[in-house]
């Protein structure tokens, strides 16, 4: 069965190739049909594969399919192999499902854009890369997908390449990701050095059972090193401190791109990778601790920045960074399944939020500033209701998807003995609810703060955009039910993921009753409601109070608005010195002085010699004749003196 696994990524690749090579001559309908068709077929095949997987007994759910030997060099062998297990199965459905919905949405959103075919070609290429990443059966193939999605992200952020800021944002994303990738690559090298294999199953089996080369008890140091290196890669791709700065800028891309790549799928690749490598991380407590701390700090920091941003997409971008932090917290406290659970629900409601924001921007004719919106509820009802659902879901209101996943993470943090992490997570949850409803109230509530011209232009989006919104809305409501917490019955989602985490070292949770767990769930809902209530008070019932608060806490407000000046810090601490060193030392000294000097010096020396020798060629026949005569005489002399004996 599922011998067709390779088709799942290959079909979007074919779509990308057709649209990319010949799309310029196709009408838009054909382009959309090819692109969405490819995504749809891929989703269909993924579903079949997933249900085939479900038919197997849980312990057999590990389908490794090798297709050919990709690299064979000495004892280094890398197969082109795909792995379907519960973990990659879940990711497969998220990527193809959400991907397909966003493809359909893009038909409406991008209808007036130039380079329509280019957009869809990149989108399909992204699906191919992401599916390669998810399905890869070894680290090297995963890295191929990892780089592929990075490339597509770069191309799509810079989609409006005639805008300088978009080009810069694309480069920033690319470069920051490369920094993380160095860690990932070094981690892969270290894995190969240690285990002489890159296949997931083989590496994890060696870790769990130990080998002659790698005795279990001696492996702590190297596993910590591997874990930390891999996590450096994850911080780049999943926008964690210190490499998160590229994600807010990535909002320069078209909104469906933000939804697909920078919210639902690509940025979660780091979480997926950490969970995939959970056998490594669960045996490296230090690395796991770093993951947790980075995760919670990122979650809190990004949430506070999100409180004051006025660009609708930037609020969502910081929200994404913050939620990704949650996922790493989950992984960091050893609740890997909870991380994937939140990854899934987040993919639904964050994609919905972005698509809703896209619909708002579409309705407003390109306006992204929340301060110039307001009262859109009447004009765009579908967008409003679906976004409200998503906002409730991300805030963690029972019984929407976000409630179950976020609560699971907070509960894991507490029950694994990290009360401080739990507290920070709770505060972040409150902030999340606040900034989400601030966004909702500013955009949809109150009176319109825009010109008559814009008011005239306001309209609900076409069905190709609203239907995806509704679909994602349904998923945001129901998505959490696959993983009901223990106090509502056993968590089936976690049990489903168990075979993928077979080699993971499970930490024992503290003993506690369902009542306690329920109590903690209630506390997080209260925190969310408090955030919503505060947002309501500040932006609906008393709109002046927001400004008053900002002026009362001027300094804090300015720091938050300036995003903690991290970009400026990087600029001063890293970019400027690098640039200065490059300019003054490497360019002006090394290149212009030393290298150019050496090259030009050689040339000048030869030129000087030539200046003397060239006088021989003076155009006078008599002079040439003299040289010939002298030369002949010299040869004869030589023959006479030295070769006389012969």
């Amino acid at each position, binding site marked *: 069965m599922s011998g067709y696994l390779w088709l799942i990524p290959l079909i979007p690749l074919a779509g990308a190739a057709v649209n990319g090579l010949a799309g310029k001559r196709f009408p838009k309908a054909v382009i959309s049909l090819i692109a969405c068709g490819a995504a749809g077929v891929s989703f269909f095949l993924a579903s079949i594969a997933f249900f085939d997987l479900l038919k197997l007994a849980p312990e057999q759910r590990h389908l490794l399919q090798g297709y050919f030997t990709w690299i064979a060099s000495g004892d280094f062998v890398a197969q082109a192999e795909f792995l379907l297990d519960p973990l990659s199965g879940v990711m497969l459905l998220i990527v193809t499902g959400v991907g397909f919905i966003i493809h359909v949405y893009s038909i409406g959103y991008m209808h007036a854009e130039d380079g329509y075919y280019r957009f869809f070609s990149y989108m399909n290429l992204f699906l191919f890369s992401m599916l390669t990443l998810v399905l890869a059966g070894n680290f090297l193939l995963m890295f191929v997908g990892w780089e592929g999605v990075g490339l597509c992200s770069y191309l799509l952020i810079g989609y409006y390449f005639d805008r300088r800021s978009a080009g810069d944002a694309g480069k920033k994303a690319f470069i920051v990701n490369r920094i993380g990738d160095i860690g990932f690559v070094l981690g892969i090298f270290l894995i190969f050095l240690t285990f002489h294999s890159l296949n997931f199953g083989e590496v994890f089996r060696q870790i769990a059972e130990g080998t002659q080369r790698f005795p279990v008890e001696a492996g702590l140091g190297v596993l910590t090193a591997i874990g930390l290196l891999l996590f450096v890669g994850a911080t780049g791709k999943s926008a964690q401190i210190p490499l998160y700065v590229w994600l807010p800028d990535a909002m320069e891309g078209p909104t469906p791109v933000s939804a697909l790549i920078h919210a639902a799928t690509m940025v979660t690749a780091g979480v997926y990778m950490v969970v995939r490598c959970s056998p490594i991380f669960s045996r490296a407590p230090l690395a796991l601790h770093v993951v947790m701390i980075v995760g919670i700090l990122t979650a809190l920091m990004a949430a506070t920045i999100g409180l004051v941003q006025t660009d609708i997409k930037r609020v969502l971008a910081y929200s994404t960074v913050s939620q990704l932090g949650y996922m790493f917290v989950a992984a960091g406290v050893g609740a890997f399944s909870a991380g994937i659970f939140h990854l899934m629900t987040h993919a639904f409601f964050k994609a919905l939020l972005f698509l809703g924001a896209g619909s708002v921007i579409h309705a407003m004719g390109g306006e992204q500033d929340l301060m110039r919106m307001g009262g859109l509820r009447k004009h765009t009802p579908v967008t409003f209701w679906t976004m409200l659902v998503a906002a409730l879901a991300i805030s963690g209101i029972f019984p929407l998807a976000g409630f179950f996943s976020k609560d699971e993470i907070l509960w894991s943090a507490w029950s694994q003995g990290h009360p401080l992490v739990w507290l920070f997570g709770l505060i972040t949850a409150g902030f999340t609810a606040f900034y989400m409803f601030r966004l909702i109230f500013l955009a949809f509530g109150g009176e319109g703060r825009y010109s008559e011209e814009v008011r005239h232009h306001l309209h609900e989006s076409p069905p190709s955009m609203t239907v995806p919104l509704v679909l994602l809305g349904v998923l945001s409501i129901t998505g959490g039910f696959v993983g009901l917490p223990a106090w509502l019955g056993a968590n089936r989602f976690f049990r489903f993921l168990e075979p993928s985490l077979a080699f993971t070292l499970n930490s024992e949770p503290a003993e506690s009753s369902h009542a306690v767990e329920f109590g903690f769930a209630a506390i997080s809902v209260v925190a969310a409601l408090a955030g919503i209530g505060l947002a309501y008070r500040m932006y609906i019932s008393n709109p002046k109070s927001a400004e008053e608060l900002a002026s009362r806490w001027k300094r804090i407000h300015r720091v938050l608005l300036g995003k903690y000046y991290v970009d400026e810090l990087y600029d001063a601490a890293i970019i400027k010195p690098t640039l200065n060193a490059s300019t003054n030392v490497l360019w002006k000294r090394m290149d212009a002085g030393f290298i150019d000097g050496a090259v030009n010096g050689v040339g000048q020396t030869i030129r000087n010699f030539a200046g003397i020798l*060239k*006088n021989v*060629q*003076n*155009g*006078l*026949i*008599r002079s040439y*004749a*003299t040289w010939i*005569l002298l030369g002949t005489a010299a040869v004869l002399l030589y023959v006479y003196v030295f070769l006389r004996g012969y």
Partner: protein
Amino acid sequence: MNLLHYLILSMLLFVIGAVGFIVKKNVISVFLCLELMLNAANLSFVAFSRHLNQAHGQIFVFFVMVVAAAEAAVGLAITIVLFRNRNTLNVDDADTMKW
């Protein structure tokens, strides 16, 4: 009259030709000096041919004569063209082909 006498004469002719080629400026004179060198070589060929009692040297002389005739034809043509274009027969005036 043995071989040495012929070779000395040949050498003298060749040296006169070579020195003349270098010191003379008139194209015609240079040309004549060139012929002198060729014939000095011819004289050596013939002398050796007789000394060694072999025909090879005499056959070479014919080759040299043929080349000399061809060279004379081409050389005189060049001389005429030079005179037409430069209005001179001085070889030192034809020195444009240099660095």
